[in-house]
């Protein structure tokens, strides 16, 4: 009996903790059923949008952890990206080289903007979100000034494709087809493997040199990494593998299988390790369960309906690798001193200061990183969409990215990679199916459109209101443990005294 109620409690608290996400998932399911769209269409659409938007959403996590709240200021990062994209297109650069140049121009801009935003936020602690929102509008104004007046008006720019016919100001849309469109999406896997190999090679060589001059101790991990990458590089020369890798898209089924295999290998390694270390069987239980789960998941792909979808959808490889890389980066940065400082500052600035952590500097760094990541996110977004709406592409990214993050279950004070990715999936599923559902239900696609706008702003408003309420409650009433400082005598204390 007791166990049963325990399980019920656990389920209950899980539902309560994830109420926003679960509620949204239900809305999505209903909308999918109502829309009657084929799954191939929906999954394909969602995957495309994941490619476009996840990077930007992941850029929001660090400011949340550093206590700066939801960073509405990512618009500024997007602006930096767009300025760079314009010039790269104007100068006529193309393909992946063009993208690299864009990144090279945009990154210093974004870092500088992020620094300024961070400095400003330090002067208005507690009002970062509203400041970021207004700053976004302000940046938009400056951006318009630059693109409508300065370009052509002050800086002579001569290109009838890009400039309004009078010679002053940039046109409403810039077509990226033939220059930057799909420049990241279309990188072949074999090239990725090659580049990664040489990168790892270079790093290992540097480490080895450092090792020789006794500044660094080479570790087993370093050599393993090099071994794995060399192995992968070698395999890529086998003709069958080479043919498979020479495309830029990966069928979802293959990607899914591949991920499962990698995960399975990791779990098997864990099992082997725990056997070698002679850990009790409890250490094996979880990996074994996971292995079974992976098997079941793989089995599911043999169901015809799922198999059809999985064979239909093709993923661009590099953007997904970049997204995975960013998620890994977010994770890694938190395990550094900087990350620990950010967490401390996010929890309490006064305690951080008292412990000798420079909280202002930490916050500025968080803003720089976030703005820079948002900038890169916008480059990925633009190259995937293929048409650059000069005056519209950046205006809504903060709202949509934040809404997506919140839908995933994040809050003003807490956000994780998982929440970001789940959020993007749910939020964009609704984006895709809502118009069709509206059309089926009310014979009017516009209603679905209204609904999704209403939902995205509603989620933000709800989350901010809940945050404000929590803060208000905290101010009026200090935490309950303080309420009985003297009256309560916890039983443990007597034990303490006896020891």
């Amino acid at each position: 009996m007791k166990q049963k109620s325990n399980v019920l409690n656990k389920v209950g608290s899980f539902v309560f903790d994830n109420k926003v996400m679960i509620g949204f998932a239900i809305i999505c399911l209903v909308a999918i059923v109502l829309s009657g769209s084929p799954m191939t269409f929906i999954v394909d659409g969602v995957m495309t949008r994941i490619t476009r938007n996840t990077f930007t959403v992941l850029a929001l996590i660090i400011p949340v952890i550093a206590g700066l709240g939801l960073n509405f200021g990512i618009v500024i990062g997007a602006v930096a990206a767009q300025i760079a994209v314009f010039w790269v297109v104007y100068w006529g650069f193309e393909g992946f080289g063009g993208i690299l140049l864009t990144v090279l121009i945009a990154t210093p801009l974004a870092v500088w903007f992020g620094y300024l935003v961070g400095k400003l936020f330090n002067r208005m602690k507690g009002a970062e979100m509203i400041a970021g929102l207004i700053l976004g509008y302000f940046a938009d104004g400056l951006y318009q000034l630059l693109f409508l007046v300065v370009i052509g008006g002050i800086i002579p720019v001569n290109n009838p494709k890009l400039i309004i016919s009078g010679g002053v100001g940039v046109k409403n849309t810039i077509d990226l087809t033939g220059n930057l469109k799909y420049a990241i999406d279309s990188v072949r896997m074999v090239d990725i493997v090659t580049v990664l190999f040489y990168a790892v090679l270079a790093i290992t060589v540097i480490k080895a040199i450092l090792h020789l001059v006794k500044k660094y101790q080479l570790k087993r991990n370093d050599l393993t990494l090099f071994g794995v990458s060399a192995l992968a590089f070698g395999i890529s020369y086998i003709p069958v593998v080479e043919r498979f890798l020479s495309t830029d898209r990966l069928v979802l089924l293959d990607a899914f299988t591949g991920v499962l295999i990698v995960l399975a290998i990791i779990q098997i390694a864990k099992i082997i390790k725990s056997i070698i270390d002679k850990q009790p069987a409890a250490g094996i239980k979880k990996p074994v369960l996971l292995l079974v789960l992976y098997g079941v998941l793989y089995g599911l792909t043999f169901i015809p309906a799922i198999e059809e979808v999985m064979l239909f959808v093709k993923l661009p490889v590099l953007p997904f690798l970049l997204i995975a890389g960013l998620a890994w980066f977010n994770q890694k940065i938190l395990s550094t001193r900087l990350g620990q400082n950010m967490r401390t500052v996010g929890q309490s600035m006064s305690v951080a200061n008292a412990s000798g952590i420079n909280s202002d500097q930490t916050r500025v760094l968080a803003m720089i990183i976030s703005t820079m990541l948002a900038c890169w996110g916008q480059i990925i977004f633009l190259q995937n969409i293929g048409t650059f709406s000069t005056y519209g592409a950046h205006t809504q990214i903060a709202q949509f990215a934040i809404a997506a993050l919140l839908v995933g279950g994040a809050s003003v004070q807490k956000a994780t990679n998982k929440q970001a990715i789940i959020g993007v999936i749910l939020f964009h599923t609704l984006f895709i199916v809502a118009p069709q559902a509206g059309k089926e239900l009310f014979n009017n696609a516009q209603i679905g459109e209204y609904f999704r706008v209403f939902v995205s702003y509603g989620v933000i408003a709800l989350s901010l209101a809940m945050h404000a309420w929590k803060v208000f409650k905290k101010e009026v009433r200090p935490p309950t443990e303080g309420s009985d400082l003297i009256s309560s005598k916890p039983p443990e204390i007597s034990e303490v005294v006896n020891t």
Partner: protein
Amino acid sequence: MDDQYLLSMSNITKEYYGNRVLKNVNLNVKPGEIHALVGENGAGKSTLMNILFGMPVIFNTGGFEGQIYLDGEPVTIESPHAAMDHGIGMVHQEFMLIPEFSVTENIKLGREIGESNALSKIFGRLLDKMDWNQMSKDSRKSLDSIGMMNIEEYAKVAGMPIGYKQFVEIAREIDKTGIKLLVFDEPTAVLTESEAGRLLEIMRLIADKGIAIIFITHRLTEVMAVADSMTILRDGEFVARKEVGETSLANMAELMIGRKVERLVEDELLGQRELFDDRIALEFKDYSVDMPGERVRGMNVKVRAGEIFGFGGLAGQGKIGILNGIMGLYDTEGEVISFGKTLDLSKLGEALRNGIAFVSEDRRGVGLLLGESIERNITFSAMQINNEFLKSIGPVKILDKKAADEHTKEMIKLLDIRCTGPSQVVGSLSGGNQQKVCLARALTMVPKILIVSEPTRGIDIGAKKLVLEHLTKINRELGTTIVMISSELVELRSLCDRIAIVSEGKVFDIMRPDDSDVAYGLAMAGVREEVR
């Protein structure tokens, strides 16, 4: 400089905006001793510690005079960080802990051990990977060294008993390398009795390792129990440095309080009032107020009609909570009976409607509408509660400007409020005059009972005397019962008929204004006279 002392602060003088808070204070601490720093609120203990820690607040207000010596060497401590480098640590009264972090994370806060890697070699130590293994080992060691075997180093701090949190703080200070001097800022204020006992043991343990301790406290019994020596401050002045062995509780209490009490108020009418024990203006029965930091816990006291009744006691003991409970600002329990009628304090404004007026201690926050005119401030409550200063035009009630104006002028004259006229904005008045406006508003209600809290806080001595005189005048001429809550004993003793000393949310004792300083000192410290 005498180098038997680990720390010497000599001839420290500090002014805040021309207000001298420390005058030639000396503090000397030997290595490995527990040195108590005692004094009333406002005696200058915190300012002295702020100087020791190089807090920004000291340097932003023009620094200080005097010299600090560590191990006989003159040092300048210009930031908390520098204090840390000199081996001076602090166990804070408000915990500097992050509840969401584990014990280890809290102990190592800001001093995390990092493993350098290739990236951090290039970009600096911010990119060091955290070595949690080593850090939890260190934390374990420092927890063990203060005998806290049963605090798990990986447990979250949130939800721990208060005592444990304090021990975690101590463990953090111990963990710092080269710690020579630890300051405990009223560490027992928030602890239960057994926790406090345990803490004192731990302090002894630390001192035996050769680390000197400065122990700031109000509780004289604890000083007697654990300290080796002490420094007593009073009104920012150095009173004495004593070895605990050669003094007594009573002696300490007298040194702490001792100052001449004069009747600030000329009182020729004193004998003419008749106070009866069966005419009760205000009675508290098991009265509790849930005000954070100033909790009242089951208070029983009767205030006679026509009396001036004082509540004194140290900060944080609950005297401030009494007023805030009646005003309805915090939840209350128990009964408050005014002239036989039980008040329903859950209704906002209940006390006001029953003829009880207030002057809050939080003048600028609760007491006044700073952006409004004197007139509006004085007439506001009466307008809201008693529907005064209003005239009806059909169904609409509007402000009776003329009546309000006249009344305000009368009040300005009566209380001698220095202003340009009724329309002057209250925020631009001086503290004393603002206080008079508060008083005027309370009087406008024509209360049967007037409760004033810290009526002289933040106003100069001349204005202080005036305010106190007015209070007496109101009592004598209008027969208003006055309840006065104040941290300044001298003030209470200068005009009250009886004074209740509040300790730990209860009335500790009701005393007469002419009781001895020793008696007051002991009562303030929560020590029964029998102890002597």
